[in-house]
């Protein structure tokens, strides 16, 4: 009995070390998505290219689609831009943009110069739809299925690898 008590601190501390070691090895920076499998939130915002055109949820939930949160102030968005262009050409997936807290003219300029992978971009200057989506910043990408449910979310740059790992499976459904 006495021996067991004497060994107790050792056992407790050794297990703490093992636990910490396991945290160290599988550190994943992905943020949780509270909205997985829930319906895309309602919104009522203008289009980036045409202020008078009012966009709502009904405009984007017809087909499976990607929603990409982007802005001109976001450097990482430029990194993923070519991939989105490629995706648009190679798959028939619809991609919508959510232009987040951005300068409208700069944003239109960028699409003019680098190409526009988006069917259209929702212009969310005040970040309202972004809050309803639980967006932390740009870039972020959501996948919604044909029923208008959010199925996947990726925080950070989307590339070939991320696409294969997280998103491509939904296309076959």
């Amino acid at each position, binding site marked *: 009995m006495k021996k067991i008590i004497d060994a107790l601190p050792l056992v407790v501390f050794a297990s703490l070390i093992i636990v910490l070691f396991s945290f160290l090895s599988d550190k994943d920076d992905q*943020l*949780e*998505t*509270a*909205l997985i499998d829930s319906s895309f939130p309602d919104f009522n915002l203008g289009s980036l290219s045409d202020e008078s055109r009012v966009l709502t949820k009904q405009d984007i939930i017809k087909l499976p689609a990607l929603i990409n949160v982007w802005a001109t102030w976001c450097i990482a968005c430029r990194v993923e831009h070519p991939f989105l262009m490629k995706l648009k050409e190679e798959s028939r997936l619809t991609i919508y943009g959510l232009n987040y*807290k951005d300068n409208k003219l700069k944003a239109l300029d960028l699409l003019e110069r680098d190409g526009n992978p988006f069917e259209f971009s929702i212009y969310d200057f*005040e*970040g*309202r739809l*972004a*809050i*309803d*989506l*639980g*967006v*932390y*910043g740009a870039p972020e990408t959501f996948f919604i299925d044909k029923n208008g449910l959010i199925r996947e979310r990726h925080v950070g740059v989307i590339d070939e690898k991320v696409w294969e790992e997280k998103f491509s499976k939904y296309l076959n459904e």
Partner: protein
Amino acid sequence: MNKLIFFLLFIICSMQISVEEKVNFDNEAYPFASDVQESLFYSLLNELRCPKCQSSNLAGSNSPISNDLKREVYELVVEGKSSKQIKDHLVDRYGNFIIYNPPIEPATYALWFGPFILILLSVLVIIFVRKRIT
């Protein structure tokens, strides 16, 4: 002397605790109709986590996203939502990460009750062990 102090204390406690009249000024960043709403707002800012900054509450951050969230909280407070409703509203969108006060659920029982169980157990143990020595 002591009686006198007790008496003074009694008087203080029975006095109406003063409530300042609420006057609205145009230059308030977040004007409220009542003090209750105002204090709810500022206490929420201290309890909600700025999602982008990783380790700061909304009160301590001026980043664009926390300003947006402050506005969201403000609008909800003005609508008359309760503290719980506002927290639920944000948790639905951002997950429990957004509140610094973790929910009480089976997965957090160890967090919430562990410290108290541990101290009770250890006090019981030392009383027990001491009796054995004596």
